[in-house]
């Protein structure tokens, strides 16, 4: 057998330590750039119920819309562009499409429309695009990326017409689409688009779990030299997935253990929010957690993990994203009482380096 069997597919983990009070902190940009967030989980140690302010943040995450079978050319509709795309920030990503199998669409808040297409669809569409960075031997995936705010893509222009004709008459790409708009009070701008198709509004799903006698790495001080990022990330993932880290002989062969040195907290609260979540809401949550940490607590840290969509054509910024074995693109923010934080940004094999 070849020796490579013990290697797992490549993954990237970028770790950073900084403070919210530091002038050069990039946390805002790093949160902002992950446009399509699927899940936000918060781990609050020594806490059995979330304080009301924190709870209100969870409950006021932006709603999002699911449009069934949306023809993609509608995203080029002149009225939609003028009232929604040019005005505020529209976040849209195709739903129930697999990035390594189907055609996927993403619309980022800066007005970038990205189409990740298989070979046949790309050739039928007839618009300029590039082969995917993650093609293996054959070029079977292509990416068409257009800036809808650019003058060449203004309605009526050549580039615009070509893409519109391609999507309307040649390729006729239709997909279920998740759409969200910020600021939320201008959702009337989406109404014209929504009214033409089968749509439904959704609130992000919130779930809460109370954990008892949880082994945690001893994170009393923020100077955590002994706990390496990989072990810490494994532990956070195990807690989030409700996997025991006791490693007892009677249970299934799990070799996941809590990193040493460890301590036990009698109870902890894990809150998860799922849906099409906007970076703006994640910011508000981070600020609220900072306020929460200012008050004295038994344990002076909180861990926030934000997962991006595994099947989104873009991850951080407009960087191409794909799936080899897993499409993870997420970050974990460990916040301390003194306004310092540890940030871990992780991606899978088919991704670019996080910011």
């Amino acid at each position: 057998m070849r020796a490579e069997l013990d290697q797992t597919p490549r993954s990237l983990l970028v770790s950073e330590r900084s403070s919210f009070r530091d002038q050069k902190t990039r946390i805002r940009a790093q949160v902002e750039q992950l446009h399509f967030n699927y899940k936000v989980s918060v781990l609050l140690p020594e806490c059995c119920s979330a304080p009301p302010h924190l709870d209100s943040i969870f409950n006021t995450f932006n709603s999002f819309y699911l449009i069934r079978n949306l023809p993609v050319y509608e995203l080029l509709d002149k009225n939609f562009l003028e009232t929604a795309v040019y005005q505020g920030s529209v976040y849209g990503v195709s739903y129930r499409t697999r990035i390594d199998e189907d055609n996927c669409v993403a619309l980022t808040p800066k007005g970038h429309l990205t189409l990740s297409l298989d070979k046949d669809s790309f050739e039928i569409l007839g618009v300029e695009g590039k082969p995917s960075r993650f093609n293996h031997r054959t070029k079977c995936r292509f990416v068409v990326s257009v800036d809808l705010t650019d003058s060449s893509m203004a309605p009526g222009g050549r580039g615009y017409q070509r893409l519109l004709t391609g999507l309307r008459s040649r390729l006729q790409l239709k997909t279920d689409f998740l759409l969200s708009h910020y600021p939320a009070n201008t959702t009337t701008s989406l109404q014209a688009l929504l009214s033409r198709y089968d749509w439904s509004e959704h609130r992000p799903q919130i779930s809460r779990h109370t954990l008892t006698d949880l082994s945690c790495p001893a994170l009393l001080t923020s100077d955590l030299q002994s706990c390496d990022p990989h072990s810490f990330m494994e532990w956070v993932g195990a807690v989030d997935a409700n996997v025991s880290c006791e490693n007892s002989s009677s249970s299934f062969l799990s070799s996941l253990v809590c990193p040493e040195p460890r301590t036990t907290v009698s109870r902890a609260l894990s809150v998860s929010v799922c849906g099409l979540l906007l970076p703006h809401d994640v910011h508000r949550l981070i600020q609220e957690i900072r306020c929460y940490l200012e008050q004295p607590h038994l344990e002076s840290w909180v861990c926030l993990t934000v997962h991006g969509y595994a099947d989104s054509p873009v991850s951080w910024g407009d960087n191409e994203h794909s799936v080899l074995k897993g499409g993870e693109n997420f970050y974990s923010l460990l916040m301390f009482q003194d306004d310092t934080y540890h940030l871990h940004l992780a991606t899978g094999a088919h991704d670019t380096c996080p910011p």
Partner: protein
Amino acid sequence: MSVFMDLNLSYTNDKSRMQSLIETAAHLGYSTVAINYTYELTIKKSKVPVPTPIKDLMEKLPIVQGRCRPIRVLNRLTVVMSEQCHFKKTGREFSAYDLLAVQPATEKLFHAVERGIMFEVSYSAAIRDSTMRRYTIANAVSLVETCKGKNLILSSAAEKPLELRGPYDISNLGLLFGLSDGDAKEAVSSACRSVVLHGETRKTAGGIVHTMKCCSETPDQQEAPPADCEAPAAKRAKQLTE
């Protein structure tokens, strides 16, 4: 990458088992499957089996898990050959099949077919029996070393739904056979797509011209566009006006 395919589901007369096989494949995430009929060329006077039409097998094909489309079901014929018989692959009886495969029973024939064709490794035998598991892995490792990981597809040859495994699991099995990450994933997706496209070209003339029988039985069966259709400007014949 392209959609995941399993191009070898063994055919049985048991209709409910076939339906269960197809449903399981759709649930596991396969977008295309091929039902495999076997034909022994050496047995005299054996006739090529006629494939059951898909709509008779299942009226409504199940939706592939995680996508919005129903599973695509193809018909495949595996011809078992042990001597160099003359085998006319363009025969009328083979036109009902989307894919044709040859199972060489001797090494001599193996060399004859090795040029320019995909090789297939089936894994369900490895699930059924531990001795077969050793043989499957050993043979697959040799095959991968010979063909350098290219032109290889992985399929199940499943007779029961429990013998099917998900595409990512089979891609990991490919790692065991010596394939790289990318090659292993291609073996269940892009390589299978090439096989299916190649099968489609069998019904065309050189992969370029596709002929269809018109409803009215005209002797000239070439597809000719009617005079008033939207032919591309460059190819429109000049109209002489008087």
